[in-house]
């Protein structure tokens, strides 16, 4: 030690002021390897916990950084029998004159070493890594310096320091890597809030640095989750310790505490209430969209389940589509009119087939198409309602489109999501399109519905999603998908995500393959992880990092009460079409 600083080549990477927190040792039973090492924790140091990032200084002055992945408490007790005897044969109240030695051992997964050689460390005095050290260890320094760092939260180390954690934008929104997947059980206000926070972070950083032009399209699939991104979070009127800590996090991460700007919200048209939409937001901010038949003609089969839309129906629909193009039939009303005429003709006794198909198959197809307007009211133009599209051409750098599809059933949601996604994909592919963005972040909750891992579950857009996940990074499409159980997501979607976030997860889910790479203690901690905390795996990080993030700057939709939700009937209306077919 010199001047209170440890003898090492990079003292700035350690918290020398806090002092040593233990010493690395390698034993017969627990030998150190190049991948991990063990250290005992000094007496009186009680702040080391799972996820802390520590730095071991070896005799040569080099530093090996690592994450605490396991903590073991060892007492000088050979077995339970001896301890039982030590308590005067089983009396818990007996206090022997000597307290048994008790120590804490930490297992550290190596992140990075200042030494170029890859080899285990033997002895080494262990310190908490300084924020600078954490930055170096995780490899954040380079891309942060180049303006590519996107703050995602802070890591709170055992010395109470808040270390800002940055993602590399080239691995978050392309082109080196892309996509984010987040899993965790519902009800902790973590997943949606984190995405809101991350989006704020991305947009602000990108706009500030002017290096990337990013727009966002969010899909609101349930309740009011994402409907109020433009409203300030009233939580920040509070003065409690956690809120203050959140403010501190914004300071550390250099993000402004303002709600989103340039937000537009779209929802299906509500014909019963002129000017309204099938959205819970009723302050006039939501714009409606409704599509003409020709817009969705290719998607119609995806709106029905397998029982209603079997292979024979599909075959009939090929001829229906052919007629739609040939005649042409441009509106749904025209389609129904034409189908009625066809039905009248086919109903004649001497006619046994419709264009080579069994009459029953034609009737079944026509029946499905009849039902379409009722099932997806607000999505398809009928009764003279003019089509209104979602103006994707209006997307620009820093803008956010929220598509509120909570009123639709799963198949309807899938259809809208896929349509918007493929359109933006095409826009980005088309060099001739004049646009003010290079990348678009898509956010969708309940991703398991769209890309399920179970091959037996019908998921018409799954292949499209896999394709986008595989190729999107180079084109500028970034998918932020969220679900409760990662095991229910197609593996290719997860594997193509450069950033994976784990929130609180149940033990049964943790037993699946998706989590097997995590150390047992880390896995176990996921079962109890508190609100606002998550485990981050990023393509640039060798080890996962426990992070915390603050309340988002916008109001969480489920906590927002509009003053003017006057007509109860309107609320009912918003729900009315969320029927499972």
């Amino acid at each position: 030690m010199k001047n209170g600083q440890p003898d090492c080549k990079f003292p700035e990477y350690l918290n020398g002021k806090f002092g040593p927190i233990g010493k690395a040792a390698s034993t017969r039973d627990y030998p150190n390897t190049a991948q991990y090492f063990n250290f005992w924790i000094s007496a009186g140091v009680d702040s080391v916990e799972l996820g802390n990032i520590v730095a071991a200084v070896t005799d040569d002055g080099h530093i090996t950084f690592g994450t605490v992945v396991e903590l073991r408490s060892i007492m000088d007790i050979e077995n339970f029998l001896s301890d039982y005897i030590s308590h005067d044969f089983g009396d818990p109240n007996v206090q022997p004159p000597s307290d048994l030695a008790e120590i804490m051992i930490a297992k550290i997964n190596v992140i990075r070493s200042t030494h170029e050689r890859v080899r285990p460390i033997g002895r080494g005095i262990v310190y908490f890594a300084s924020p600078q050290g954490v930055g170096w260890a995780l490899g954040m320094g380079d891309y942060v310096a180049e303006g590519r760092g996107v703050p995602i939260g802070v890591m709170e180390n055992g010395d109470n320091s808040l270390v800002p954690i940055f993602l590399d934008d080239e691995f978050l929104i392309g082109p080196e890597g892309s996509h984010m997947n987040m899993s965790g059980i519902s009800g902790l206000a973590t997943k949606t809030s984190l995405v809101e926070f991350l989006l704020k972070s991305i947009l602000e950083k990108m706009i500030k640095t002017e290096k990337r032009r990013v727009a966002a399209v969010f899909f609101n699939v349930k309740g009011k989750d994402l409907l109020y991104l433009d409203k300030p979070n009233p939580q920040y009127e509070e003065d409690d310790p956690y809120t203050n800590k959140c403010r501190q996090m914004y300071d550390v991460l250099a993000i402004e505490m303002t709600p989103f700007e340039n937000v537009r919200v779209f929802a299906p048209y509500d014909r019963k209430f002129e000017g309204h939409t099938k959205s819970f937001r009723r302050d006039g901010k939501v714009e409606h969209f409704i599509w003409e038949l020709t817009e969705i003609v290719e998607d119609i089969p995806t709106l029905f389940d397998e029982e209603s839309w079997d292979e024979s129906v599909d075959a009939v629909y090929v001829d229906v589509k052919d007629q739609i193009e040939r005649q042409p039939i441009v509106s749904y009303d025209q389609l129904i009119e034409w189908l009625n005429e066809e039905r009248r003709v086919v109903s004649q006794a001497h006619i046994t087939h419709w264009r080579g198909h069994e009459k029953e198959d034609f009737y079944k197809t026509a029946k499905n198409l009849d039902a379409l307007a009722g099932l997806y009211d607000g999505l398809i133009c009928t009764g003279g309602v003019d089509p209104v599209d979602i103006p994707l051409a209006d997307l620009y750098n820093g803008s956010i489109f929220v598509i509120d599809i909570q009123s639709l059933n799963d198949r309807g949601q899938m259809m809208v999501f896929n349509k918007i996604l493929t359109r933006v994909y095409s826009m980005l592919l088309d060099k001739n399109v004049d646009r003010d963005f290079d990348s678009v972040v898509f956010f969708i909750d309940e991703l398991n519905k769209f890309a399920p891992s179970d091959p037996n579950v019908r998921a018409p857009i799954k292949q499209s999603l896999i394709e986008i996940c595989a190729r999107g990074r180079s084109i500028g499409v970034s998918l932020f998908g969220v679900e409760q159980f990662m095991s229910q997501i197609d593996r290719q979607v997860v594997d193509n995500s450069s950033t994976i976030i784990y929130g609180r997860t149940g033990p049964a889910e943790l037993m699946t393959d998706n989590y097997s790479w995590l150390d047992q203690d880390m896995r176990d901690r996921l079962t109890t992880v508190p609100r606002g905390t998550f485990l981050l795996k990023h393509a640039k990080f060798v080890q996962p990092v426990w992070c915390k993030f603050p309340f988002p700057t916008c109001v969480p939709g489920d906590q927002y009460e509009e003053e003017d939700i006057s007509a109860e009937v309107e609320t009912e209306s918003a729900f009315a079409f969320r029927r499972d077919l």
Partner: protein
Amino acid sequence: MSDVEHLTGTAATAAAGRGHLSRIFDMLSEIGGRTSPGDQIEESNFRVREGFHNFRLEPIEKEPPGIDFAEQPRPENVQLVYFARALQRTQLVGHFYQKGIEVPVHYAITGSIILERANRKFKVWRKPELRTNVMLPFNFVDRRDVLERFQGDSQVHLVNTEGDRAEYTQLRIAAVKKARELTLGLRSQLCSAWGLSDGQDLKKYMALSGTVTDIPNKLLGPNFFAIARRVYVPWQNSELLEPQLTLPPYHRGQVMRTVFTTGSDPMPKFTWFVRLRSSSQADPEFGLVRITCLADSDQEAIQKANDITGRIVDERLPVTFPADGWDKLIFPMKLCNDFLESMVPTRETVKSYFARN
């Protein structure tokens, strides 16, 4: 980031650990010896006579008091705060042929430690005394230059075992004796330092593991006692030991004075047995330890015996099972041993290092 001039941490640690073993190996080579590590430590092979045959036991009580000390109130003026223990490990590592006999070379670790207990927690009192020695009889070594060169070594002490009987086994015994002498020297050094400082608080007692029978009384203090684990030793009237074998648990035997009968200083001390614990299938010596202390009078000795016995019965918990001899081992002494052992290479390391040609 590379630094080729530095050893890596692991290599440096390993090199430091092997350093003195390497030098002993070199010395052995230079004097024409060869390695021959023993399977056991020499203390297990040879029992050093401790001189009990020069002492007599004189009971100052007719019979044991018959008190269950587990149930007795504890005296405030006797508190067990300090615990001392020595470490001695003599290992045969090689031999050389000289003057018609095989001459053994030993590696010996000698040390002593005092642990201090406060609020049921332990810490090392000052610092442990520890010495690493290479031992051989100098008068059998022709290459004096090698010895002289080695004597300057700061990490390993070159020790003359002074064995004069030109027999291989006797020279081995001489090495163990010398090691014991060194160990007692270190123990005495540490205990004296304690006696002159913290030992001045007479309420705070030190328990020392081992025997002090042959230590002059002037070197021992009034708040000091020794715990010996061996029941039978060849006192002049060792038949007095026989009744001790029937002591019930948590009882003490009668207090006896020990007197040195062959010298000018009789070194009178007081000793008694205590049954720390018992078991239904235990042998008669199970849990039986012998305590030795100083006292100015028989009455004081009896009072001290009662006070110390109560305190030592308390130390039966926590148990040290399944440590060797756990029935007589109190936890603080085990901790002393663990501490010392943690500071030195294991006997397996030494043995395997010298198990090469």
